[in-house]
């Protein structure tokens, strides 16, 4: 189950991120997640349903309202405080990972350049 301090998949991350802005319905989440991820995350309805179901049971999102549009039922979901905290933690974890990568990468580049200079 998703709790603060636990890694989440990219799909769940972008689902949460799209809800951070405002309550959205399923199809809107799919589109926003794709936009935010630069087209990388393409959620199917089934995947999104599973993710929202788990997030809802964990209290990270709640059902905001239901609407019928063109004869189709739309469920709007809203991010809770606990969901926002989960998103925060995950973002911080990725930020730390990026910092660590840059540090290692910079050191490796310096070492390579030094070796090349000696040679």
């Amino acid at each position, binding site marked *: *189950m*998703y709790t603060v301090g*636990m*890694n*989440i*998949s*990219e799909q*769940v991350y972008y689902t949460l991120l799209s809800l951070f802005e405002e309550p959205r319905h*399923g*199809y809107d989440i*799919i*589109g926003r997640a794709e936009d935010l991820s630069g087209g990388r995350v*393409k959620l*199917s*309805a*089934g*995947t*999104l*349903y*599973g993710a929202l*179901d*788990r997030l809802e049971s964990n209290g990270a999102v709640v059902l905001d309202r*239901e609407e019928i549009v063109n004869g*189709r*039922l*739309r*469920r709007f979901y809203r991010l809770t405080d606990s969901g926002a905290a989960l998103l925060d933690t995950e973002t911080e974890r990725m930020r730390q*990972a990026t910092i660590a*990568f840059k540090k290692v990468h910079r050191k490796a580049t310096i070492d390579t350049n030094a070796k090349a200079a000696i040679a």
Partner: protein
Amino acid sequence: MRRSIGETMISAAIKALPAPRRAEDGRALADLALEAVAGGAGVGREAIGIVKTGARARIGDRFPHLSAAPWRDATWATAVPLTTVIVLFLIVALPTVGKPTPGIHHLLIGYWWLATFIAALLALIAACGRLRVLLFGSGIALSALVGYDAYGPGGSMRSGASHGADMVMPPFTVAWYSPLLLVVLSFLWLLPVIALVRPPVRTRESGKLKGSSLGKMFAAGIAIFIVFERLSPAFGLVPDSPLGSLSTSASACTLLLLIAVIGFAVASYRRAESQETATLALAISILLATPVIAWLVMAFWLTIGATNSVTSLFVALAFSVGVPLSACVVLIRRTLVDDAGADNEPTQCA
């Protein structure tokens, strides 16, 4: 009003959801999928996504602990019931194999059962205690013991266990007892194998084995297998082989020794400090694993009723090349793939 193919497919896929969830969420999910299809998503992809989610929900509802656990924990959770079943079957078989009968052959049957039972108990202890190496060792020993006995001369434990199983199971299942047990055992030792090859392999350059070296090792492994198959009754299918007079237990010991060496080589690979040692250990593992896998496959093939040794040999060779080759591809791929974050697999409630 007639429904489109897309609507029919989505409606059919929704049936994969458990009934209570279908009643609660079915319409919203179907409408969402249809909206996605109208927006350009593939109807097949959407239908498959719903079926997968439905299957996950069904499994999750029935086995909440298993489905909520990370993949590795879930495999361990399955190892415990698997080993319990094996131990129980062996206990069921005890009255038959323990029967005092004249002749040394039947005495050996008793020892054979005892060895299998000890291996099964060790596997159960290992599964409960999460001792990967012990589970690997006992699992592979069990596979070898049962595999050998399933088709070996006299069919000692096979007949004993089958008679035992006959007491509690319908007659038509008895014929499938040995092959099923063998399949279960194979799964049993595959679990720790997967766990064993995880972190150390990925941080090492796979011993820097080239494709041509791997090919030579497989070829050598197959050669070992063919030699054993022709000469030893433990491996072979030829009753009048030159070494046919050797006792079966001695041949089985050879096989177990071979397996033990493989286990040692795998363990050495994991702990190797240098690249050279790792390469050597990996080479030995692959070289020796090839004939053993071929033997196990052949044993299984014969157990399920194949009598044509040429077909058996063909299948065994195909598997003995395919399985280690696939394993190596996985090893190398995992090594080459950037390790960053690889151990931090996203935890999903599947």
